[in-house]
């Protein structure tokens, strides 16, 4: 830029201001568009049934029906379903985080014939369509009598997730070599090295992995729908399927209120854990 363009009255300066205004307008408009569906969900959850049946649309509730949230909570065993979701998500996230860290350590710090091929398969398996394997897996779990138990999530958790393995592998590969050499001199086995030296160093990745896996499971609809009976199922399934009047028609406002209560915990977890979550996301995307 030349010196003249920096003077306060210059046309360039003016253009920069206009640009900034356009940019802000665009940002606010897009943000509004993206928050709209969720805002509408909250509004729907605060309306009376009569308002939802009327045309043209009632933009805002005439009287805010706060009790819809209490009603949605009481109509079904909301707390029970939330507890099921919490148990399954914690169980899976805890197990899969530990097992993925364990496997990731192997891929990051150890060598063996066949490792490269296995790593290729691991990365390739991230692209396997999971819905295709889920349906036959469901048949197998049914044969083994594991339907309507939480065993499938235990087994899935123990067998690690390729995406998280990759996350841990990237992290462990970046730690200095001296870490394990000192431990080997001290006579520490690889299990000990992993458990006592590497794991305590990896809190950021451990928490990111836990949050990611927890969010997956809390948000999963199809696996609990197939594997669990209605009573033992998760909040996702309950919110989607149980807000139905005896006549068979959906209870729209209560379902909207319930889905807000179902989504908000995940949003809060995301906002708290944002940094780890996002850095995990971008690491995987750049591979």
């Amino acid at each position, binding site marked *: 830029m030349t010196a003249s363009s920096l003077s306060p009255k210059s046309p360039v300066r003016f253009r920069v201001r206009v640009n900034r205004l356009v*940019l802000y307008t665009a*940002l606010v408009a*897009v943000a509004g568009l*993206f*928050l709209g*569906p*969720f805002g509408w*969900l909250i509004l*729907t959850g605060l309306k009376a049934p009569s308002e*939802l049946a009327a*045309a*043209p649309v009632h933009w805002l509730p005439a009287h805010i029906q706060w009790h819809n949230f209490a009603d949605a909570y009481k109509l079904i065993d909301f707390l029970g379903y939330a507890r099921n979701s919490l148990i399954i998500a914690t169980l899976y996230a805890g197990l899969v985080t530990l097992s993925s860290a364990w*496997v990731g*350590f*192997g*891929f990051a710090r*150890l*060598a*063996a014939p066949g*490792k*490269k091929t296995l790593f290729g*398969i*691991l990365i390739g*398996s991230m692209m396997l*369509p999971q*819905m*295709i394997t889920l*349906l*036959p897996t469901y*048949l*197998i779990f049914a044969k083994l009598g594991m339907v309507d138990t939480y065993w499938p999530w235990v087994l899935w958790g123990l067998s690690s997730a*390729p995406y998280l*393995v990759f996350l841990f592998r990237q992290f462990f590969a970046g730690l200095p070599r001296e870490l394990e050499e000192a431990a*080997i*001199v001290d*006579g520490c*086995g*690889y*299990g*000990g090295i992993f*458990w*006592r030296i590497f794991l305590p160093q990896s809190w950021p990745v451990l928490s990111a992995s836990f949050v990611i896996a927890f*969010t997956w499971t809390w948000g999963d*609809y199809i696996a609990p*729908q197939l594997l669990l009976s209605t009573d033992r199922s998760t909040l*996702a399934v309950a*919110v*989607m*399927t149980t807000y139905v009047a005896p006549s068979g028609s959906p209870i*729209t406002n209560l379902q*909207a209120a319930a*889905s807000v209560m*179902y989504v908000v915990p*995940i*949003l809060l977890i995301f906002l708290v854990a*944002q940094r780890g979550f996002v850095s995990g996301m*971008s690491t995987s*995307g*750049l*591979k």
Partner: protein
Amino acid sequence: MTVEQVAPEAGRARADRTAGRVRSAERGGPTMTTRRHRAFYMFASPWIIGFSLLTIAPMVYALWLSFTTYDGISPNWHYVGLGNYRELLHDSATWDSLGRAGLFAVMSVPLSIIAGLGLAVLVNRPVQGRGLFRTLLYVPAVVPPVGAGIAFKNLFDQNAGAANGVLTFFGFDAIGWLADPYARYVLVMTVLWGAGNIMIISLAGLQDVPRELHEAARIDGASAWRTFRSITVPLLSPVLLFQTVTGVIASVQTIMPMLLAPIASTGGLTTIPQSNYTYMIHVFSEYFALGRYGYASALLWLLFVLILIATGLIFKLTSGVVFYNVDPEAKK
């Protein structure tokens, strides 16, 4: 696993290890190496076992079922060879639903990548509060599918939805968004709502673009669009390729049509409007409405093979276009 737990052997193990270390230090002896090999497989075993039992085995099981008439109830199921495959090739429901899935992928994948990339460029500009905007635009991507499904059902409801509210406000007729033929656009919009995902990934790529490149382009007098097209997009191309592949795979197996249907469960598949009756929904209906496990398994295997072919094609078609700034092999 700890040394304390195996106290009697610990001394000897330690001696062995020290000896191994000394030997390997002297002449690269085998003890240390073998130990590391064994340790690798000990660490990799949860994944190897889990992948074999919970991914490979179900796929093989499905392949076997696809040659039978198995339905889970009738004891007289039998081997029919390629019978199921012959049937699905001649069933128009296969190709119609596959076409709908393909159309959905063709609409939703490019649009969401363009949207995500556009948002990334927007929030990469040095403005105050851009961190807040990034968060706000990313939040919908965190909303679970059930929440998104219910939100969009309400947003596009014939009477109570905001979309028709806006249309009628401007004097247009209300539209049955959740019915044919509009339901597919609502389905695409649920994907676009999650474009914050692609935004975050592209943003990381954008921040990796070296400053000097932009400065050099500016000195050369390149316009903003030209810089974007000739510098940003090529440098982001590996990320975009990855997003295309995962986007296509995600879109063919989406269950969102189920969540947008009036009755959202495997029992309500018939309430899904025709335009959202994708291949995956067809598979679910053969599986759960009709209980034809054998036939449905053949459908799954056809989809699996088609996905492999599509992925291979995408990689092949883009092999000359995608630009790797750093040799990906060199990273290992």
